[in-house]
């Protein structure tokens, strides 16, 4: 591990740092071809010159990823100035971060919500969705019983079966949530084309956020069941 100093940023988006030509959006200066610093606040969609839509053709995205990798990778800059090497490192790491996020439909939605200020990184609601309260209560009870049975040598097998059953049940719910999320995402894309007002946009974003919260809650449940089953 080594420490580098943040390079003094040249205000991007205005002129090329090398030839001072006016810059349109892009990775390189169209006049002299030099790699450019990343404008502050560039989001992953913009990096790929994509609108903030949630339906992305994975094959086209991968193709673009390979094309940009070919141009931006540090391999191209081993003999360039330190400034250009740093810019390459910055752009190519951003490219990889962006591709990693956008290729995964779920991560893509989380990222959009994060960018639009609806979600905090790593913050997931820990309270159970109301419609699941009863099932969650039952599940937690079974988990307790299993732990107890294991400690005291009780009937682990039948408890196992019960847990496997509720795990399947929750997995099914996850599938349902994924479908719901995909459908709201499509609504978002359609709304974006129709120049939506703020209220419409915010309502769609809030719905996606709410589904994601439920989803992550259930996922945590399933993970804890899996862990207990593995130990039992």
């Amino acid at each position: 591990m080594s420490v580098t100093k943040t390079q003094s940023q040249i205000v991007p988006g205005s002129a090329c740092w090398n030839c001072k030509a006016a810059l349109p959006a892009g990775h390189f200066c169209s006049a002299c071809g030099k790699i450019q610093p990343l404008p502050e606040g560039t989001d992953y969609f913009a990096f790929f010159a994509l609108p903030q839509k949630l339906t992305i053709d994975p094959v086209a995205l991968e193709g673009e990823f390979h094309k940009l990798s070919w141009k931006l990778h540090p391999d191209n800059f081993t003999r360039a100035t330190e400034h250009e090497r740093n810019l390459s490192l910055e752009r190519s790491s951003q490219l990889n971060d962006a591709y990693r996020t956008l290729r995964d439909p779920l991560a893509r939605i989380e990222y959009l919500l994060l960018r639009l200020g609806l979600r905090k990184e790593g913050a997931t609601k820990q309270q159970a969705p109301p419609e699941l309260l009863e099932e969650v209560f039952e599940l937690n009870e079974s988990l307790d019983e299993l732990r107890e049975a294991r400690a005291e040598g009780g009937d682990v097998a039948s408890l196992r079966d019960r847990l496997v059953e509720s795990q399947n049940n929750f997995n099914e719910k996850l599938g349902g949530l994924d479908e719901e999320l995909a459908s709201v995402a499509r609504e978002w894309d359609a709304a974006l084309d129709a120049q939506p007002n703020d209220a419409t946009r915010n309502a769609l974003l809030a719905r996606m956020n709410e589904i994601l919260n439920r989803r992550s809650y259930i996922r945590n449940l399933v993970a804890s069941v899996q862990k207990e089953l593995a130990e039992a």
Partner: protein
Amino acid sequence: MGRTVGIDLGTTYSLIAYLEPQTGAPKCIPGPNGSTLCPSVVSVDTDGRILVGDPARERLLTNPDRTIYSVKRLMGRGVADIQDELTRFPFRIDEKSSNVIRVRLGDKLFTPPEISAYILRELKSWAEKYFSDTVDRAVITVPAYFNDAQRQATKDAGRLAGLEVLRLVNEPTAAALAYGLHKQKRGHVAVYDFGGGTFDISILKLISTSEGDIYQVLSTNGDTHLGGDDIDNALMDVARREIHTQLGLELDRHGEAVQELRRALIRAKHELSSSEKVAVKCRISSTQTYSREFTRSEFENLIRPIVARTMAPVKLALADAKLTPKEMDEVVLVGGSTRIPLVRKTVGDYFERPPHCELNPDEVVALGAAVQADILESGVKTMLLLDVTPLSLGIETMGGVIAKIIPRNSTIPASAQEMFTTGVENQTGIDVHVLQGERELAKDCRSLARFQLKVPPGPAGLARIEVRFLIDANGILQVAAKDLRSGDEHSIEVQPSYGLSDAEVEHMLEESIEFAEQDFAERQLIEARTEAEAILTATEKAFRDPRSEISPAERRSIENSVAALRSALAGTDYKLVRQRIDELNQATTNLAEILMNSALQTALEGKRLDDV
């Protein structure tokens, strides 16, 4: 500027390769004995001279306390990490070492990067002799599953050897590159790399684009402490037990026999790849000899658990790549241990296809490194490697829990930004602990570094420090911080948890007497002088020979050349000495011919040449 090479710094053997400009094909450079394999063994003799490779390996038998092998196992590790190794490897670790291991060889202490640097220097000298030119830049390979500290230690070794490390490349990726060149294949490739000390599996996707080929690593996994060494140790354990029960001897009390036996068993292991049985015989004490026969099936039963251990990382890597064994188009074997039939069979059965092993598994990694070195050096890109970071990067949060900020198998370079603030009023520092690993708790992960962000005193939560973590194309972490309120960049004092600080490496560099270029020039001068002495002696002898009938003009011309060479010898310019040697050679061509012809005549007359 000198030459650029690719180096495979292996646990058991190290190799150096370059790209031959005429053929465009990578080639390994042989050492003095004609072999391209340099045993990764270093020995220090009583007057402090360092021996590397075959001569050092000889000294494993005669001077085991001054000789070290498998030092790669110690790279980037702390004393606490290697307790299990110490029971199996005769490393003599200095008690005072903690975060940086210091190994005792004779009466001196060395860090693992210093020892590795000696191996790199030896390889560098092979190449310099081969090119008659300096070598100053290299691509060095590392196991894909090496963590940050192990990579940094390898980079430090390169620096200490006087090499600019252009890039660290993962071994299986380098192998895939050499393999892809060879086969021109597209699709999914699994590289199973079972070497002397480490095991790696990488899943790659080979893509053809209009610009060139891309080798994209999808996932990687491995075990940095699983290799042929473990097989040797298993054989040693059997022998140790049997020596105890059959001969009533404690092997470890017979230090000189340990290495001899180890060698015999390694030879047996190699032979069992082609024979069904092999006899081992080794003298343990002056009166007692251990001998036994190993059959292949016995050997296979012994090593089955070790081979089985490689399959868990294989399954994890496939799961991360979201692929099944059947979806692999090719399986490539790398590393000496893949010569073992059981390994080939295990891999073939799992992937349901015969693995490729047509490339020399010892050389393929170095060859790939040479290809990458050429791309970086020439700036002419014919292919692109997209590699990944093998381990997740995280920071410690409340309660010792890890927050992952860059997941494993992310394409590198990769980055993450984290915002830090103060929790209490007038707090002046924020502690950050960076770790690598897959476990949930900090105590189970590998600590990379700790540092403190300095903040001006103020209300809690006011400070806003953005820290950018960036894993570069070598897989090494860089950290930069920025105070978002003032816009100032932050200086961070990072204390690496393991390994040498920059200052320590600098210090070692200054301390090392033989600097790279000086080293090369000196060696060239010594060689040129030796050659000059030989030709001067030969010329004088020829002058004294009664059969050397040459004109006075020719004689004068030779005498002039001799004088010129002698004056060049008084200086230190090896190029001038070489030039004068050439001139003298030129001047004596005719004389040499005369002598040769009369010698032939003498021989034809039935006399032995020696008598002339």
